[in-house]
């Protein structure tokens, strides 16, 4: 149990997918103007990332690696991600059409989120078992969502403050993101300790 807890802390905080690995920067800058949009995007990404990572792991372990099809890895993973997004969309629509009105808009954006493909490729390098892979993918996605919501909260406050004209908009956003990344660097002391 302890190793799962360490894996979660490592994936979500110490090696945060956005601020340490610099993956998924498009939604990080694009969908963080409001907290409600960041929550919706974060939860949808968590679902699709976890689902596609376990599917990718299964395909890699039982199909690509045994049959020497490693050269098809990237294209297979991209197909699995696209299929996972379509599956998630169909499921949300089936579970509740009303919820689809609220959450459906975020799903297609996930297909182009490089964090989803990045985590699947990291799992191939890691060579760990199924449950460790699933927990790692889930914790990475939680880290992604956490940073999205934190950054959205900061940007909502920034929108109400008086910023020097030259820094208005994306510049102050990037400065805030860099300060947030510095704060997250503090977690790397946990791994050193």
């Amino acid at each position, binding site marked *: 149990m302890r190793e799962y807890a360490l894996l979660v802390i490592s994936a979500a905080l110490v090696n945060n997918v956005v601020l340490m690995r610099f993956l998924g920067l498009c939604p990080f800058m*694009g*969908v963080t*103007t*409001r*907290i*409600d*949009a960041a*929550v*919706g995007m974060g*939860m*949808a990404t*968590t*679902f699709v990332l*976890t*689902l596609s990572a*376990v599917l990718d792991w*299964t395909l890699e372990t039982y199909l690509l690696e045994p049959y020497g099809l490693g050269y098809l890895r990237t294209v297979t993973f991209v197909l699995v991600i696209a299929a996972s997004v379509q599956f998630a969309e169909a*499921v*949300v*629509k*089936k*579970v*509740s059409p*009303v*919820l*689809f*009105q*609220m*959450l*459906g*808009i975020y799903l*297609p*954006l996930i*297909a*182009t989120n490089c964090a989803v493909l990045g985590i699947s490729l990291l799992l191939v390098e890691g060579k760990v*078992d*199924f*449950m460790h892979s*699933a*927990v790692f993918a*889930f914790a990475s996605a939680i880290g992604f969502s956490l940073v999205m919501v934190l950054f959205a909260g900061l940007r*909502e406050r920034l*929108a109400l403050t008086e910023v020097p004209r030259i820094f208005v*908009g994306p510049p102050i956003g990037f400065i805030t993101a860099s300060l947030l990344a510095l704060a997250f660097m503090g977690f790397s002391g946990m791994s050193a300790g």
Partner: protein
Amino acid sequence: MGAASDNETDLIEPDMMEGIANVVAVDGSVAWLEPEQTGSCGSCKSSGACGAKGIGTVASRLEERRFPLTSHPGLKVGDRVVVGVREDALVQASMTVYAVPLLTMFAAGFLAQWGSGSEGMTIVACAAGLGLGFVIAHLRARRLSAHGKMAPRFLRRARIGETCQIE
């Protein structure tokens, strides 16, 4: 849905998230609305050449996202209106649709791993847990919809040039 701005409606409903929609059909007492495009796509400099349109953030998806509005003060086709949903509704919706299936998937996976120790069994159990999660999510979503928590409400007619974007 946009964050609530300062207006007279917010004094009555301080916990509503707002969004702009167009009336596309009126059928007796029910008006059918399509939400206007929101998010980052509208302001993106590459929106004209964006491939994301193909998988549908704009026209191809708007029809799918059409929703009914029952209590409205004489709306007609072409009207732009501001609708709102409860601020906590999005979090509840996300938890229901995404978190519940993932939690049941992990619960089933851990149980199978500790019970059998076989990786094949763990994968099968995870798939079964995910399916069970979808059933639970479906039941919970139906209950939430029956309570009317998820239903958008008419707030006011949109002003000319009004958007829900935060600059």
